[in-house]
């Protein structure tokens, strides 16, 4: 029993335990849920402290046969890429339980059970090293989110839940087909084994095959990210989801897509990925600018934040497909940053909703007067989100842009426009909600943060500052993992064509910008 298995198992244990708790004890349900979530979080911290820098490859691994024929392994392990995404999941789950404490009062038991099941699925996605196992967790995580939106959502929850489910399914079907095909060719679902076969030249694809396989995986992940123009499920899902659902969706579930791109698409099908990179980057840059412009004119706070996610995630995709060390590092950092700061934005918007029972920006104004601390925390989160240095997003955005600039300076020129626009939509939102005179409904209903709300938001604010000021706590394992991925992607290309020259080298090697 490794620590990693414990981290994966605890939420599942919590899920089953909750099923046996009597329905009429909601307080006990909440207590049990948060206890399990906190224990999971504490256990996951051990992963960060235990991950060794001097060991290559996956750590905390377990590899046992799960299903004998076809041979499917329970093979899990983590590297620097998985590590922080696991911790992001275990950090946000207790926060989601805290923010749902009062606002969820129907089917309490099922709600927390689904939340823990979701955590189980998400952790599973980030640590699976067997393609079939990965696919199972991918689908497992889909189900609880479907119910979280469909049961505890707002008015149009059924529409949003079905839309969410269908979009994701459409992609994952393609991915399943590709996984089955890979199994037929390689004779195994084991990811490391497949990579070894490819590195040894024992498994190779024609360019056409590789392109189809790449696209099958890519579309599944791109829908999840979501990459423009596959993003329209996201605003609906966010607006209708309960706060906890929005937080988990934005903070962690979207990263399943970007994680998949970096973990699977880039090393497995590196040549196809490189060939498609310019097109994908065009979509990413369109997403950055388009998401920001559409966010600017949203009358609904949650929709605004949802479209801003399209913009932020565009940076992540840009970083990945720049195929540079800095781009990869920035992309991973930005995944975590987005998880923290957009998660916090959804938490705060949820607080506002609990008070005023509206998400319309026009229903607010002058909130800073009755709720100065809520306003202050919202401001810090806003500043993190728009990339103010000393807060987390700046580091990620900077590294992504730097990586993009190394690959092709023009990409950075266009992508950086997103940094201007983010200030426009977020500051305008902040002004309309928090500044100005306070209308009567706001004065009557809006109050400042209570202790429970402080407890939920403060860890996120602390992370924004920590990740913005002192990156050595987080960046080294990420860099190590990304170096390995970059090497794999080069190795697999070597058997087919010569690498494209200059742009893909690391910082010091590049002589001039294009």
């Amino acid at each position, binding site marked *: 029993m490794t620590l990693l298995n414990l981290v994966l198992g605890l939420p599942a244990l919590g899920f089953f335990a909750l099923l046996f708790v009597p329905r009429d004890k909601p307080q006990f349900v909440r207590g049990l849920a948060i206890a399990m979530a906190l224990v999971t979080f504490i256990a996951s911290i051990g992963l960060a402290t235990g991950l060794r820098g001097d060991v290559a490859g996956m750590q905390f691994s377990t590899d046992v046969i799960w299903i004998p024929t076809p041979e499917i392994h329970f093979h899990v392990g983590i590297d620097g890429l998985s590590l922080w995404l696991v911790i992001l999941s275990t950090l946000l789950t207790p926060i989601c339980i805290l923010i749902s404490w009062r606002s969820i009062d129907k089917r309490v038991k099922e709600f927390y059970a689904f939340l823990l099941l979701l955590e189980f699925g998400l952790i599973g996605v980030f640590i699976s090293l067997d393609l079939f196992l990965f696919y199972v967790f991918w689908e497992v995580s889909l189900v609880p989110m479907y119910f979280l939106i469909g049961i505890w959502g707002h008015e149009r929850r059924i529409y949003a839940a079905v839309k969410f489910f269908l*979009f994701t399914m459409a992609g994952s079907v393609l991915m399943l087909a590709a996984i089955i095909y890979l199994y037929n060719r390689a004779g195994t679902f084991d990811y490391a084994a497949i990579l070894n076969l490819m590195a040894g030249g024992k498994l190779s694809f024609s360019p*056409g095959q590789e392109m189809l396989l790449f696209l099958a995986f890519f579309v599944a992940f791109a829908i999840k990210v979501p990459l423009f*123009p596959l993003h329209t499920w996201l605003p609906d899902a966010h607006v209708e989801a309960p706060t906890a659902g929005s937080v988990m969706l934005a903070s962690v579930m979207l990263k399943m897509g970007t994680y998949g791109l970096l973990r699977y698409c880039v090393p497995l099908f590196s040549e196809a990925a490189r060939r498609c990179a310019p097109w994908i980057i065009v979509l990413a840059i369109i997403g950055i600018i388009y998401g920001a412009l559409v966010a600017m004119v949203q009358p609904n706070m949650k929709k605004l934040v949802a479209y801003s996610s399209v913009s932020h995630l565009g940076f992540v995709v840009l970083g990945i497909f720049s195929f540079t060390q800095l781009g990869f590092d920035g992309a991973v950092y930005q995944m975590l940053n987005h998880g923290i700061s957009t998660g916090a934005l959804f938490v705060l918007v949820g607080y506002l909703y609990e008070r005023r029972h509206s998400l319309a920006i026009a229903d607010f104004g002058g909130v800073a007067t009755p709720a100065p601390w809520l306003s202050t925390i919202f401001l810090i989160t806003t500043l993190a989100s728009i990339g103010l240095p000393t807060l987390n997003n700046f580091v990620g955005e900077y590294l992504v842009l730097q990586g993009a600039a190394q690959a092709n300076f023009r990409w*950075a020129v266009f992508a950086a426009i997103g940094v201007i626009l983010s200030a426009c939509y977020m500051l305008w939102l902040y*002004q309309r909600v928090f500044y100005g005179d306070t209308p009567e409904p706001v004065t009557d209903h809006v109050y400042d943060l209570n202790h429970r709300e402080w407890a939920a938001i403060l860890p996120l604010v602390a992370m924004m500052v920590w990740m913005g000021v002192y990156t050595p706590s987080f960046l080294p394992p990420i860099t190590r993992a990304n170096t390995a991925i970059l090497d794999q992607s080069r190795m697999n290309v070597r058997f087919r064509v010569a690498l494209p020259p200059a742009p893909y080298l690391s910082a010091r090697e590049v002589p001039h910008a294009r």
Partner: protein
Amino acid sequence: MQLWLIPALPLAGFVINGVFGRRFSKTLVNSVAIGSVVMAFAWALKTVLGLGEAPYSEHYFDWIVAGGFRVGCDFAVDRLTAVMLLVVTGVGSLIHIYSIGYMAHDGGYSRFFAYLNLFMFFMLTLVLAANYLVLFVGWEGVGLCSYLLIGFWFHKKSATDAGNKAFIVNRIGDYGFSLAMLLIVVNFGSLDFGPVFGAAGSKPEGLLTTIALLLLVGACGKSAQFPLYVWLPDAMEGPTPVSALIHAATMVTAGVYMVARSFPIYIHAPAALEMVAVIGLFTAAFAATIGLAQNDIKKVFAYSTVSQLGYMFLGLGTGAFSAGIYHLMTHAFFKALLFLGAGSVIHALSGEQDMRNMGGLRKKIPVTFWTLMCAAVAISGVPPFAGFFSKDAILVAAYHHAPWMYWVGTITAGMTAFYVFRAMFMTFFGEYRGHEHPHESPAVITVPLSALAVLSVVGGFIRVPVWLEKFFPVAEAPEEFSLVAISVVAGVAGIALAWVMYMVKPGLADSVSASLGGLYRLVYNKYFVDEIYDAAVVKPVVNGSRVVLWRGLDAGLIDGAANGIGSSSQGLGGWLKLLQSGNIRSYATWVVFGSVILVVALGLVGAVR
């Protein structure tokens, strides 16, 4: 030398007042806020006194390390930094003290001082930075504080609008700055000043020119140069000490500092340096003409700041880097004083800012009058006051660079003297035209005014060019008496003209403006630049995003297509329902069906090859 202490002290003040300030007494808030800044001043003074010719640097930790790229949290102090450190902490301390009196009756007392301290932290980080990224931290941070303090009275929509405008226009400048940093890393592999400047000479001129111009875009945003100056006049919505500290003496000079700091890049990019001079000169003249016709006392001084910053850029652009920094320092003295004096006037009149409702205040608020007069004489370039020396150094350098620049600069100096004395005459002379009962400000206000007045009078004798002699490449031209005399005459003529138009023949100003007609309205309305930006940029972007991108493309086309596929597959699902009973099983069928098709397709592709 523990350089980190200098910014850390105000940061501590910010944290203490920010978290506990609301429970503190005003005295306690004052002691924390002012104590921390004065201590920072003391530590800066000690640092500067211990400084030799060589720069001194400290490394604290690696901020970002990725691949072969490394940026440290590094501070350094050299002679240029020394000037900035003393100006920022010195003038900053005086303005902090002044604020005790000015903000005494404001509800957000502790919040105000917390923001001021935060500003000091970022500004000091900016000037102490030993690489571009840490400089950028300070750069963005001071922009944040500017935003917070412009919108300090957040009930007023005009104030929060002005704050947003400042932040966003600065972001446009920062866009250029960011791209410059990206290019520097791609080509130099580092952001540290030492390695970058050391290698600058060996890089192609085209690259250096691009970098220099992109840095200039950033500088134009922060230092309110054309065409990005539009935020600064609006920034006067903030409390007056903020206008003095941030929007006159320190933050807006960050662009000047950054260009001066980057001089090793600029001297190898003559085209970019010429651009610095041209933009500076144009802004100086352009803003001065607007200043001629404003009636709001703070607006006059705001356009004057834009104009004076233009002079500093002119100095840098003509190669007289030390003259630019010299003017930066003297300007910090007399412009901070002009704003603080204006604040004292506004305070005396309970918030009145329109000069048409002032007049005759000379006798009623004498200390304010006399101190403000020192600043007015200093900015007009009358010897031997502070502004004379620095402006003279810039104009002489401009003459040796290109004589026409000297002449435009000299005419602008005349306009400067005119509008400042126009403000002085309208405010302090003649009959009082308002309805308040003016009262002199308390000592906590008048003492900082007097200190700055002394600096405005004798500050020119702090010979910055001598201090920086070995720092910048020598481009200083010999002093020529005739050039100096002409610019002094221009200043005196401006004063005389204002005296004639507003003192001797008070009706003359109105008849002149009436006879100018359209030209006067153009200047009075600031050349309609804000309106043009609004119609050409803001409205098209917002409306285009709303109508075309969101309603048309996003909700209409993309989502419509997705829902279209959805509803047609619903039709298909209806067909499938004939074969299948439940939804889950139909999904399962789809999964298998789709997978089979894809496996077959892949097989076919494989077979074909």
